[in-house]
């Protein structure tokens, strides 16, 4: 089969010179030759290797820990436990896409009093080598008192369920419950009057949808290397989505001043939200402080599965009513998210995203966050939205079937647009949801027949849509103009998927110079201003905005300096297309000429920017999938996949496509294979890449990314975040396709061979 080149996006016809092109990324050569330094690749002189002791039980009181034998083992240089935290506070830290109670965080990283899930960290050691560290773990004596476990989101909410924390009360719509509970929070979003809305409906459908925990599945395990110097300066090298967030967490957890901490973000091997928080960094710091030497910690793959932050499992009931002609009159839902061992922010985003693509007058949503004996969940690409969309977009497909409407037409008829009010009270500015639906209808995929299945097999096609907010938050950057006409850009957004290019290209565009004249560097927390995490689909938007402002600052300075060189008043000059020109058109200096001049005489030119932009433009996506299923085995093949998305302006189209393709692939895995499989004691039984089966090259087709460009009015270049929304539609799209193929509605993920055979009655449940 011939592989066609990706389609060029519409922006190729725009007036931009750099934006919309596909240059090689600045860090590319290092990454294809093995030279790029990731967190696990750093080596410091005199460095110790550490290991973490983890609980074998999912729920237990810690009666006693004795580390004396481990500490006495030759080669062991430090042992730490939860008793080494300098104090436990209950301050709430905002991680952008997640919030964390710092007391919970400390207890999650090194348990205090109780363990709440299998794999919960109990102690850590640092030794001369890894073998000694592992041996020392076996010498730590921990006496546990086992407790009953609760592992399911619905079970966790029942009266009499084992309590993870007998001092936790439900915050229900601002009121504290009288009895302790695993339900941390109950929230509500209300729009209009659902009773009235359902009364207007001709058709009403209601179902429950369930999902299990899934993992982000980044290939690089967590790692941290710390050096606590005798001058109390702490340096931490790690793979993180946010070096400043790591620093701020270290300040709070270690009670150590910000001015004494430097975090150096090394290259990061995937995150998808799972590397926004800290796991090993504070523990490595404690071990380094105790031993006086640098300490390096890694997680094994099993530790990553058992003890990092998967996405919450959910139980979501949803009811939708519509008129005969397909106008949705009301929607009501209960969304319960299992946040894992400690409360997180699962349900809130789920409620706000679930029906955002639709202009529905009457909505009532109740969200609950519960705790269970599983790891504390973390953000995973549009966190909470995929589970909610699985429910809503599956039920919409059923509604379309019931009404005899095309599912895209039903969505078009109810689509959100500029001016639509959301459940959180905000009103959409210019958005491109309708454009994605129209592009999906016009796509080659949608127009083509499904084709004949192989003998004995069945085919189906499904569609689904999704929404994600996209974020803004703080970014800083600066750049110096070099004598050779190049510009060195220093920014603070960890490059997880090509953002050195997408940020640097916006600086090149602003300055009117070729992209290969911009040299981006990602700096540590002492070497650039504050930057929020690489997450929330914010980086190309907000750090790109900072790069734009850096460019404008340089332009202003160059105009002033040119006035001196050209002996004109600055007001008579303007910066256009990489040149300073006189407005009368009789004289000019190019960027390259000015770069040489300003470095020869007078002060150098350094542009700087610190921004915290509002106005992130939301993202919408519509996906189409064709599947072929073997009814005898339940094996599903994805034949064709098209992902349409409003991407605002595609700065580097290849990396925009890459985000969409990667998100769709993760969604296909979530739909068909991926799940956290626990036994009744709370032991994760599939904590390896063999048993937690992520899609391979053989499981996926080429994925067509269709870029719809509706520029975001809230950004100088129209950027919308693109990275997260691609994970929102796939699960419902696949489920809807399987319904067409098999005639059954699968309302629980994953839609594995076993579940499909159960649903079709081939095997008993």
């Amino acid at each position, binding site marked *: 089969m011939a592989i066609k080149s990706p389609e060029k996006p519409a922006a190729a016809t725009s007036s931009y010179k750099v934006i919309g092109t596909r240059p090689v990324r600045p860090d590319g050569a290092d990454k294809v030759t*093995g030279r790029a330094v990731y967190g*696990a690749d750093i080596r410091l002189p005199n460095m110790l290797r550490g290991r973490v002791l983890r609980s074998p039980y999912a729920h237990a009181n810690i009666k006693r820990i004795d580390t004396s034998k481990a500490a006495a083992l030759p080669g062991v240089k430090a042992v730490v436990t939860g008793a080494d935290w300098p104090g436990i506070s209950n301050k709430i830290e905002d991680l952008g896409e997640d919030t964390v109670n710092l007391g919970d965080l400390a207890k999650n990283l090194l348990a205090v009093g109780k363990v709440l899930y299998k794999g919960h960290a109990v102690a850590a050691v640092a030794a001369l080598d890894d073998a000694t560290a592992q041996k020392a773990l076996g010498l730590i004596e921990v006496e546990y008192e086992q407790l009953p476990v609760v592992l399911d989101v619905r079970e966790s909410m029942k009266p009499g369920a084992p309590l993870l924390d007998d001092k936790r009360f439900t915050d229900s719509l601002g009121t504290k419950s009288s009895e302790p509970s695993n339900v941390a929070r109950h929230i509500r979003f209300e729009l209009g009057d659902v009773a009235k809305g359902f009364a207007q409906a001709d058709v009403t459908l209601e179902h429950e949808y369930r999902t299990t925990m899934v993992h982000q599945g980044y290939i690089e395990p967590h790692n941290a290397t710390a050096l606590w110097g005798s001058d109390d300066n702490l340096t931490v090298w790690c793979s993180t989505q946010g070096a400043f967030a790591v620093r701020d967490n270290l300040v709070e957890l270690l009670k150590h001043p910000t001015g004494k901490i430097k975090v150096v973000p090394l290259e990061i091997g*995937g995150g998808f939200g799972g590397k926004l928080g800290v796991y090993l960094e504070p523990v490595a710091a404690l071990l380094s402080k105790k031993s006086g030497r640098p300490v390096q910690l890694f997680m094994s793959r099993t530790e990553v599965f058992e003890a990092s932050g998967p996405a919450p499992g959910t139980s979501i009931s949803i009811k939708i009513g519509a008129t005969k002609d397909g106008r949705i009159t009301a929607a009501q839902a209960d969304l319960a998210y299992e946040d894992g061992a400690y409360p997180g922010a699962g349900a809130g985003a789920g409620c706000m995203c679930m029906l955002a693509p639709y202009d529905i007058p009457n909505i009532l949503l109740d969200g609950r966050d519960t705790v269970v004996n599983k790891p504390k969940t973390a953000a995973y690409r549009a966190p909470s939205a995929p589970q909610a969309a699985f429910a809503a977009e599956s039920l919409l497909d059923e509604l379309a079937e019931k009404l005899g409407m095309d599912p895209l037409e039903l969505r078009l008829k109810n689509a959100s647009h500029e001016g639509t009010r959301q459940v959180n009270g905000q009103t959409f500015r210019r958005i491109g949801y309708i454009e994605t639906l129209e592009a999906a209808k016009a796509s080659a995929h949608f127009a083509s027949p499904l084709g004949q299945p192989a003998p004995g097999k069945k085919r189906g096609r499904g569609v689904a849509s999704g929404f994600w907010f996209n974020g803004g938050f703080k970014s800083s950057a600066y750049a110096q103009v070099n004598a050779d006409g190049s510009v060195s850009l220093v920014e603070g957004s960890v490059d997880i998927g090509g953002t050195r290019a997408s940020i640097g290209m916006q600086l090149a565009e602003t300055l009117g110079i070729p992209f290969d004249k911009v040299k981006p560097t990602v700096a540590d927390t002492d070497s650039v201003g504050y930057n929020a995490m690489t997450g929330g689909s914010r980086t190309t938007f907000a750090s790109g905005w900072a790069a734009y402002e850096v460019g404008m600052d340089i332009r202003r300075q160059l105009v002033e300096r040119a006035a001196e060189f050209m002996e004109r008043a600055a007001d008579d000059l303007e910066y256009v297309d990489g040149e300073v020109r006189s407005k009368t058109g009789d004289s000019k200096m190019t960027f390259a000429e000015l770069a040489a001049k300003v470095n020869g005489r007078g002060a150098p030119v350094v542009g700087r920017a610190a921004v915290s932009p509002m106005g992130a433009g939301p993202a919408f996506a519509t996906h189409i999938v064709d599947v072929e299923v073997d009814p005898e085995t339940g094996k599903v093949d994805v034949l064709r996949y098209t992902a349409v998305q409003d991407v605002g302006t595609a700065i580097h189209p290849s990396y925009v496509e890459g985000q969409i393709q990667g998100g769709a692939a993760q969604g296909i895995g979530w739909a068909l294979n991926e799940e956290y499989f626990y036994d009744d004691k709370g032991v994760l039984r599939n904590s390896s890449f063999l048993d937690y089966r992520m899609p391979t*090259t053989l499981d996926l087709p080429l994925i067509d990314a269709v870029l719809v460009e509706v520029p975001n009015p809230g950004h100088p270049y129209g950027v919308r975040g693109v990275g997260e929304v691609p994970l929102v539609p796939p699960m419902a799209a696949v489920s809807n396709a399987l319904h067409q193929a098999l005639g059954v509605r699968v309302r629980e993920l994953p839609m594995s061979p076993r579940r499909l055979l159960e649903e079709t009655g081939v095997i008993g449940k």
Partner: protein
Amino acid sequence: MVALKSLHFTLNGETVDTLCDAGESLLELLRYRLNLTGAKEGCNNGNCGACSVILDGQIVDSCLVLAVEIDGRSVTTIEGIANGPNLHPLQEAFLQEAALQCGVCTPGFIVAAKALLDREPHPSEERIRHWLAGNLCRCTGYDKIVRAVKRASEQA
């Protein structure tokens, strides 16, 4: 203490004499003794392919090979794929096709793809997908990786 074993082997075309523990994997030897950190540890049990190297012409997960097993044999790692400053066509194709995002699986994919192209210069898409099924990538959905290998094969 366990006595160290001596090893003599060819690494990226050059002779290496070194020592290793009896229980040490080839991946550990490369990363910790020889400081070649291009091969990555993603799982340490042969499921992700991030540590792929070529051993006597065969693609292997270096985490599953004991270092003592490579005595007298020839190993090619990601650090030995480029010809000095000149990138291998696969490396160039990965850059042109934007076939990497985070990049941590990229060394393994390039090494694995080289082992394929060394024996089959013009593989089909299906053959490429079959060959690379032992390498996990979580960022790209494989679309651009498959395109890059195809592109490199067409230029060879």
